């Protein structure tokens, strides 16, 4: 479904991603783990064309993305929950969710999706008409996830979805990941909470200072000593 081939990404002079390649297959949950500043966010941004690689290609369902404009990816079925939530602060919770469904034309079936999101996050329903900039950090995070789900993506990129959420909700998030996986959505997950991420993931890649240093089956990595030591707090 998604294929990243030998990409290099720079921020001016900083060489953030060095020759990274990986794949995500249809229906899989793949997770990227790595320390702060390893380049996880950068990779996700490159996939959704917020950043451009100086070298290498990203293929989505076999199509190279270089031909497309960034916003067109959404039409192909990609959604991205960005780091730092990035909700539209002056717009209400409801409007933010509507923006998530920006490309959708099927008004009738959208109702059910709103309801679905409100069952995931009852808080959002309570805050429906509040400008989202005044939401608490965690509430904004819920909104960012809900917003991305509204586009009914084929491929969902999640950048630290559990950040700032209460323990109960963290569990909920990983439940959601499993639920939508079952519904057929492919997921690329970036998490600090590597332990839980590896538990829901099929496969994982370990990133260190812009390079992939390890990859494999999630369960195996969970048992890997070096991974345990560096990322699982063990």
């Amino acid at each position, binding site marked *: 479904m998604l294929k990243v081939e030998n990409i290099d990404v720079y921020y001016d002079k900083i060489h953030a991603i060095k020759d990274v390649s990986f794949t995500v297959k249809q229906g899989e949950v793949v997770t990227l783990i790595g320390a702060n500043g390893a380049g996880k966010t950068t990779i996700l941004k490159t996939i959704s064309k917020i950043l451009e690689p100086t070298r290498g290609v990203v293929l989505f369902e076999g199509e190279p993305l270089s031909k497309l404009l960034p*916003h067109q990816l959404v039409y192909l079925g990609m959604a991205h929950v960005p780091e730092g939530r990035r909700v*539209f602060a002056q*717009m209400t919770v409801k409007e933010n969710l509507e923006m998530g469904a920006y490309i959708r034309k099927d008004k009738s079936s959208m109702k059910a999706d709103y309801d679905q999101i409100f069952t995931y996050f009852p808080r959002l329903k309570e805050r429906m008409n509040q400008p989202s900039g005044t939401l608490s950090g965690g509430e904004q995070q819920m909104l960012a996830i809900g917003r991305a789900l509204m586009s009914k993506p084929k491929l969902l990129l999640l950048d630290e979805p559990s950040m700032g959420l209460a323990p109960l909700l963290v569990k909920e998030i990983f439940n959601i990941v499993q639920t939508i996986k079952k519904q057929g959505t492919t997921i690329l997950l970036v998490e600090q909470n590597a332990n839980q991420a590896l538990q829901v993931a099929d496969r994982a890649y370990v990133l260190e200072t812009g390079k992939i240093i390890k990859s494999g089956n999630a369960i195996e990595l969970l048992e890997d000593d070096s991974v345990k030591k560096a990322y699982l707090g063990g």
Partner: protein
Amino acid sequence: MLFLQQLINGLSVGSIYALIALGYTMVYGIIKLINFAHGEIMMAGAYIAFLLAVNTNLPFVFVLVIAMVLSAVIGVVVEIIAYRPLRKAPRISVLITAIGVSFFLQNLALVLFKADPKIMPELINKSPITIGPLQVGTVTLTTLFLSIIFMIALDLFVKRTKPGKAMRAVSEDKEASILMGINVNRTISMTFAIGSALGALGGVLYAVMYTQVFPTLGVLPGLKAFVAAVFGGIGLIPGAVLGGFVIGMIETFTKAYLSTQWSDAIVFGLLIIVLLVKPTGILGKNQKEKV
């Protein structure tokens, strides 16, 4: 009676400020740019209308529409050439570019048309409507009508329609907007097109009302519209119109009853006081930043 006549005078000035402020606030609301070149788009619209009126005998509505469309094109071209490359630059750099564009268009008009004002043909029958001892200009009525209509239309557009919501999303976070599938460049172009068309509309009516077209035509109304937009709560569409009317009224009544020599100082003085009491303008919400 005198008071009523002055009220009408105030309405007349206010309606034109309101109309111009609409375009101003539209662009500001979306890209947070104090578009100094807005006045020059007005001027361009006025010259286009002037040339059409003098060289053809199209009816007023056509002249107006053509001027609006061409000005929208100019606005979009300016955006693409002068503002788009600066998307990532500090806001103030774009402001300076806008000032540069404003100078440029003024000087271009100066070279093309020379400084002396051209006389705008009477596109609308200007003989005032007399109600008892009172006189209301037809241009005033047209402007008044248009500013209210456009206020309602734009407000609905921005609040209710998809492209309108896309504009608001873009104004808050371009990157996140892309992730929603919004074409940011096209959305901004559309904003400029609408803003510039409104500017041209204001420019033509301004020129008709005050009979002249000249290269710096847009400077004063542009500035006043900016003030009006801020006064009403910048970025808010009804605020722009309200601000326009309030400024027009204050101006007229100071001149009529206080002092003409000091009127500018009084108007600005009041503006300053209002902003100090209500820092986000009349209709602005005093929302404290959530930290």
